[in-house]
C-alpha cells in the first residue's frame, strides 16, 4: 500500500437485497497526483464502489478513509465536510440544465457560500472570478454564459470538471465520465482529467475502453463480480490480466 495516500479503501463490502454481492472485501489506496482507472464489466461493482466512496450509498463493512475521516462512519456535518474533499463526475454530467455554465461551476462552492446568496443566486465577484478561472482551466471560458443544456456532451463534462476544481477537491471520482461521449470529446475530457491530476489531485475514473485506460491512467484497478482482481501500474497490464477481467464475466455480479 503506497504511503501518503489521500484515499484509502479497506475491506469495502456491499450487498444489495436479496443477495446481490456488489462489492466483496475491496481494498486499494490512491496518492495525490495519481490517475487511477477502474476497469470491469457492467455489473462488476464500479458504480457501487463510487457511491460507497462518497457516502451516497452506505457500505455494509469496511472503511473509506479520506484525509483521516472514515466516510462510512460519519454522518451529517462531518459527512458533508468529508464530501467537500471529494468531487464527483458522472456519466450523465448532472449539471443543472437551466443554469449557465458559470453558475454550474459556482455550485462547487455551494457548501461554503452563505445561504442567502444561494437562495438569491447572487454571487460575489471572488466566486465569479474563481469560476471563470476554473472554466479557463478546462478550455471553456468562451462558453461561460451559455446555458448548460446548450452545450455538447463533452463540453458539459468539462463544466463538471471545472465544478470539481471550484470545489477545491483533493480527489475527483469519475464514474464512466466518457461513456456517453464521442471519441474526440472523450479524448479531450480525459486529457483535462490528466492535467488536473498532474496538478496534484487524485483522479479515480471508471472506464469501459481499455485503450483509454492504458493511454491516460498511471495505474489500473480492476473489479470482477465485486472483487478486486487487479491493481497494477498501467505498464504491467498484459493480455493475461485483461482476460481475467473480461472473459466469461461472473453471473454473480451486482447491478450496473
Amino acid at each position, binding site marked *: 500500500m503506497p504511503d501518503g495516500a489521500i484515499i484509502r479503501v479497506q475491506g469495502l463490502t456491499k450487498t444489495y437485497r436479496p443477495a446481490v454481492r456488489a462489492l466483496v472485501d475491496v481494498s486499494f489506496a490512491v496518492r495525490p497526483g495519481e490517475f487511477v482507472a477502474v476497469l470491469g464489466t457492467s455489473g462488476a461493482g464500479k458504480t457501487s464502489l463510487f457511491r460507497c466512496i462518497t457516502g451516497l450509498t452506505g457500505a455494509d463493512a469496511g472503511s473509506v478513509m479520506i484525509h483521516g475521516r472514515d466516510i462510512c462512519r460519519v454522518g451529517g456535518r462531518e459527512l458533508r465536510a468529508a464530501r467537500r474533499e471529494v468531487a464527483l463526475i*458522472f456519466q450523465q454530467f448532472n449539471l443543472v440544465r437551466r443554469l449557465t455554465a458559470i453558475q454550474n461551476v459556482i455550485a462547487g462552492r*455551494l*457548501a461554503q457560500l452563505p445561504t442567502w446568496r444561494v437562495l438569491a*443566486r447572487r454571487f460575489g465577484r471572488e466566486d465569479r472570478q474563481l469560476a471563470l478561472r476554473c472554466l479557463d482551466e478546462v478550455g471553456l471560458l468562451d462558453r461561460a454564459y451559455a446555458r448548460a443544456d446548450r452545450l455538447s456532451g463533452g463540453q458539459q463534462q468539462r463544466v*463538471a470538471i471545472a465544478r470539481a476544481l471550484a*470545489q477545491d477537491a483533493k480527489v475527483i471520482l469519475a464514474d464512466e465520465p466518457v461513456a456517453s461521449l464521442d471519441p474526440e470529446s472523450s479524448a479531450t475530457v480525459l486529457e483535462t482529467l490528466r492535467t488536473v491530476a498532474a496538478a496534484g489531485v487524485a483522479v479515480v475514473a471508471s472506464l469501459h475502453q481499455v485503450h483509454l485506460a492504458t493511454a491516460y491512467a498511471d495505474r489500473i484497478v480492476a473489479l470482477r463480480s465485486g472483487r478486486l482482481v487487479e491493481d497494477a501500474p498501467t505498464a504491467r497490464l498484459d493480455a493475461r490480466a485483461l482476460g481475467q477481467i473480461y472473459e466469461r464475466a461472473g453471473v454473480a455480479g451486482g447491478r450496473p
Partner: protein
Amino acid sequence: MTLASSPARVYPEPAVAWLSAGRLRFVGVVVAVGAFYSVSWQLARVDLAKLATGLPRMASWAVKAWPPATAELPVLALRAAETVAMAAIGTTAAAVLALPVCVLAARNVTPSLLLYYPARWFLNMLRGIDSFVFALLFVAAVGLGPFAGVLGIALHTWGSTAKLWAEAIENIQPGPLEAAAATGASRLKVVAFALLPDVLPSMVSIGLFWWEFNVRASTVLGVVGAGGIGQELKNSMDLLDFPRLLTILGLILVMVTVIDHTSEWLRRRLE
C-alpha cells in the same frame, strides 16, 4: 430465400384452454362493470321522460331571454371582476402556503418520512374538501361576500397545488441533486440551487392552471353567497329574469375564454 417461401414446418405453440383463467377474468370484469353502471343508473334516477318534457320549457326560456338585458352591464362586469379577483387572491395565497409544504410532501427531498406522511395526509384532507364546501363554512363564519370565497379557494387550492408541485419535484432527474449534495452542501442549498431552476417552470404552469380553474369554480361560489358573478346568476334564476340571466351567462363565457387563453399563452411561453 424469404421466410414466407421457406419450406413448411409446424412450430409447436402453447395450447389455450377453452375455459382459461384469463377468459374467466375477462367475463368477470365485464359483469362487474355492467353491474356498476346499472346500479349507478338507478341511484342517479335517470329519467329520460322528464328530460323530454323539460327541454321545451328550457327552449321557451331561451325565447323569452332574447334580447339580453344590457342596462345592468357595468354592475355585472364589476361582479365578474370580483370573481377573477377572488380566484387570483385565493390562488396566490394557496401558492404561498403550498411552497413549504410541497417540499415536505415530495419523497425525494423531504427531510424525514416523519414529516412526509403527515404532510401528505394534511394535503389530502384539504384536497378532499371542495372550495365550494369550504366557502359554505366560511360564509357562516365570516359572513356573506367574496372574502368567504377567497378563503374557500385558498384552502382547497393549497392542497391541490402542493400535491401537484410535490409530484413535479418527485419527477425530476435525481442526478443534478446528487451532484450538488456531493459537494457537501446542505439540503436547503441543494434544493434552492439544483432543484428550483428545474421545477420552477412546471410549478408556475401548475399555479396558472389552478388560477384558471378557480375562475371557473368561483362562478359557482356565488350560489352559496360568497360573492362574484355567481351570486347575480343565482338572483336572476330565482326571479326567473331570463334576459338578465342570458347577459350573465354571456359574460361568464367571455371571462372564462379570455382567462383560459391568457393562461394557456403564458404556460406555453414557459416551456
